[in-house]
């Protein structure tokens, strides 16, 4: 085949006057994989969808040229546009659980594409459906074709979605974040399949936020930000010698392979303010004996300030099982480790490996069936909640979804005031100094105190969440996927912040993540969890852990 399959020149997409894509040009040839990388809001998805005329409601699309296999997409309408969709261009979207109709068997979805774009009769379509499912590597294709997306695993679903995308034998395949919802080994399999299709002559346009995904498969890479392409080249050129400032920032922000302690984000935030003295020493505290603190750094404080490396929180032989539908599921099985002052334990594992249950056990939100958790050498998990409560300030938590961890009715100021006063008041007025100091610590503008979390960006929310955890002056922080919902550059900032805080305060971290790159960058030790068991535990630098499939996932959605 001669000439490019896809030719885009000066593509502009506007939503009610706002330019989302601003003059993008590129071409994709048969048997070539071109990848567009960028963070959320960069316009990469809209670019991809414009190619099939699905930029979205109210989008105004214009281009000097936008042709697929010689057909000008923008001037196509009705039947001819529909012929193009699925027949000439296949689209593979992100999460097959929602991108395939949950009420219909996957075989029917694939059959629909065949009915639209081939002249096959019903029996031939059924046979072809089975063929396609086998081709994308689904065993038991006959059975699978009768199942609905909800009955398949994530990887199986995604393969089915790809099968429905290639059923019309398209010359161009547009894959929009095809692996984002998947665990890493599954991700690798799906990428191999896409690579195979490319090798067979399909032109592939891959959209991803994930540099490591792109690196493995793309022939050429486009970096997009704010609707424009800022850099273009082979993966080696773009990732090894980035020319544009934004690309450099993006590449630097990837934690994978960066030694512990190196900064990921460029400029340090203006945070010269000293750590806040958060507790109100005059307020009568019934539990003063345990947790009364004066301001930090004073000699008297040393008594309860841990020394570096001291064991603060220790889990030994924790086991927890759940019963779901009469079936026993072991979420934690003989889990033992310890968290030490100033050190980070990274806990990695695939979804469903029991990471979150482990976090809940450590936080005392869940009681282990067997085993024990001790805090500062004293019992923690066996205590009744009333006796655990006075000691709770020692252990803080940062959740994955910061937004839902805040009461939607409260402002940032109220959230922090509540944390500072230990629930005595949510009025920030009397404790303004402490609230301001907390905001300083996490590098947020003081004006944000008046806002509600809903109106903050993802990174700001996570900073508020960290500030709240710090207010009680904890010794241990349980970080449950703290950056997995963030763009890679924002992720870098939050990770840097966490690192700095740890150094300032000798905090012990348990960092739960599915992203081995993040874990390796942040941790001193790493525990690998599989089906509720710790299958590996050792220093982050040891070969056995690092030799795991290194397809790390710098999330930057």
């Amino acid at each position, binding site marked *: 085949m001669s000439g490019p399959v896809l030719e885009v020149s000066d593509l502009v997409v506007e939503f009610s006057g706002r330019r989302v894509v601003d003059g993008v040009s590129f071409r994709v040839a048969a048997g070539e994989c071109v990848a567009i990388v960028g963070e959320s809001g960069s316009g990469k998805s809209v670019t991809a969808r414009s190619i099939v005329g699905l930029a979205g409601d109210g989008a105004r699309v214009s281009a000097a040229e936008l042709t697929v296999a010689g057909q000008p997409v923008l001037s196509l309408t009705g039947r001819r546009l529909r012929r193009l969709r699925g027949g000439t261009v296949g*689209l593979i979207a992100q999460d097959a659980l929602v991108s395939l109709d*949950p009420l219909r068997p996957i075989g029917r979805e694939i059959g*629909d594409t065949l009915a639209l774009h081939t002249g096959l009769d019903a029996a031939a379509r059924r046979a072809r459906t089975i063929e396609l499912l086998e081709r994308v590597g689904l065993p038991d294709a006959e059975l699978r074709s009768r199942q609905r997306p909800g009955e398949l695993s994530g990887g199986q679903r995604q393969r089915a979605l790809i099968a429905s995308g290639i059923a019309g034998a398209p010359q161009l395949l547009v894959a929009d974040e095809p692996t984002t919802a998947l665990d890493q080994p599954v991700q690798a399999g799906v990428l191999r399949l896409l690579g195979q299709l490319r090798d067979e002559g399909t032109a592939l346009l891959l959209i991803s936020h994930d540099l490591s995904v792109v690196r493995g498969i793309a022939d050429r890479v486009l970096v997009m930000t704010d609707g424009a392409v800022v850099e273009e080249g082979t993966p080696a050129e773009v990732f090894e010698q980035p020319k544009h400032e934004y690309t450099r920032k993006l590449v630097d922000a990837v934690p994978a392979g960066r030694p512990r302690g190196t900064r990921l984000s460029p400029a340090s935030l203006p945070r010269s303010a000293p750590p806040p003295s958060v507790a109100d020493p005059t307020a009568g505290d019934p539990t003063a004996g345990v947790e009364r603190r004066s301001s930090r750094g004073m000699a008297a404080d040393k008594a309860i300030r841990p020394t570096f490396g001291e064991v603060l929180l220790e889990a030994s032989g924790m086991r927890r099982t*759940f019963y779901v539908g009469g079936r026993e599921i072991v979420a934690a099985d003989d889990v033992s480790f310890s968290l030490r002052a100033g050190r980070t334990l990274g806990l990695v594992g695939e979804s469903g490996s029991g990471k979150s249950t482990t976090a809940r056990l450590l936080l005392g939100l869940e009681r282990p069936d067997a085993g024990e958790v001790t805090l500062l050498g004293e019992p923690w998990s066996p205590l009744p909640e009333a006796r655990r409560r006075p000691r709770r300030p020692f252990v803080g938590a940062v959740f994955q979804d910061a937004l839902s961890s805040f009461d939607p009715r409260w402002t940032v100021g109220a959230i922090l005031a509540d944390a500072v006063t230990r629930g005595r008041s949510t009025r920030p007025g009397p404790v303004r100094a402490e609230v301001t100091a907390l905001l300083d610590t996490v590098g947020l503008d003081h004006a944000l105190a008046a806002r509600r979390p809903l109106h903050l960006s993802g990174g700001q929310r996570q900073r508020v969440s960290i500030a709240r955890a710090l207010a009680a002056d904890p010794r241990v922080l349980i970080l449950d996927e703290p950056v997995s919902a963030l763009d890679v550059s924002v992720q870098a900032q939050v990770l840097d912040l966490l690192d700095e805080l740890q150094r300032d305060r000798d905090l012990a971290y348990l960092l739960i993540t599915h992203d081995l790159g993040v874990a390796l960058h942040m941790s001193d030790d790493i525990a690998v969890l599989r089906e509720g068991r710790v299958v590996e535990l050792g220093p982050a630098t040891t070969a056995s852990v690092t030799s795991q499939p290194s397809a790390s996932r710098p999330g930057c959605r």
Partner: protein
Amino acid sequence: MTLPVPTTGVRRSPAPGNRRWLLLRAGGVLFVLWAAATITFFALRLVPGDPAEAILGGPGSQAGPEALEQVRREYGLDQPLVVQYLTYLGRLVTGDLGQSYSLHKPVATAIGEQLGATLALALCSLALAWALACALAAWSVRGGRVAWAIGSGLELVAAAVPHFWLATVLILFFSNTLGILPPVSVPGPLGIVLPALTMAIPLAGFLGQVMRESLLTAMESPFVTTARARGESEARIFWRHTLRHAAIPAVGLSGWAFGSLISGAVVVESVFARQGLGRSLLSAVQLRDVTLVTGIVLVVALAYTVMTLVTDLADRAIDPRARAVTE
């Protein structure tokens, strides 16, 4: 932190869960019926004054002493309460709902005579309401802004219209102005049109509101984008994908809708002077014929509970996800 959904290697197996679910639900239905019977029994005893007198229509009934005595013997009112209760339950099981003083016949017979008319009305209305709601929702969702505004406005007003007033307006329009339909119910298919329409319109308003919401959600779902990217036409997407998603919550509401239709029948049947359970119930309430009232209420509760069970079954048939969540 989300709930620990420990999905480690769990494959949902709908088959055994299904039978267990059905058994549990059937048990639930029996329990509800027993409890409903108990409530009606005590409602009967709560009527102030002599229960025998209450059974004969309250203090104003001027029943003779021998009539009262007969009722006492028949209902075992001279027995302890527990014995009365057990007797009552025993009679219910055999289908004996007692004797209606106002109609001078067994309650079960009276209900049997009226049930058909009300069921016919309710089913006609339900079908009509579904048709109206689907048509309106489909038209207004796909017809642009103006259609959207008109559709949601119509549904809102429809849902806010009381049956008795709507009946009046419909009679005024169709009978008095146009003169094409009879103002009161007459035998034959023509007589059912106005009552059914009266009950269907408010219900269609409710169903339409629910359907519109879910249609909108379905239309914004990613699988619709996938279908478009596959080259499906908008019409096919609507009929094959979105409509089915939109129907799920509305089907779930059909059990409730059936109940509200029975309520509506009380009003509508009396406005149109139409024979049926609702009208019997109303006159029984007005005459304070307690046995008849409790009898009808129990039968309706039975029908309603069974209807709810059927709706749940239908829901599980349409939506495989409902099967996965067995609780």
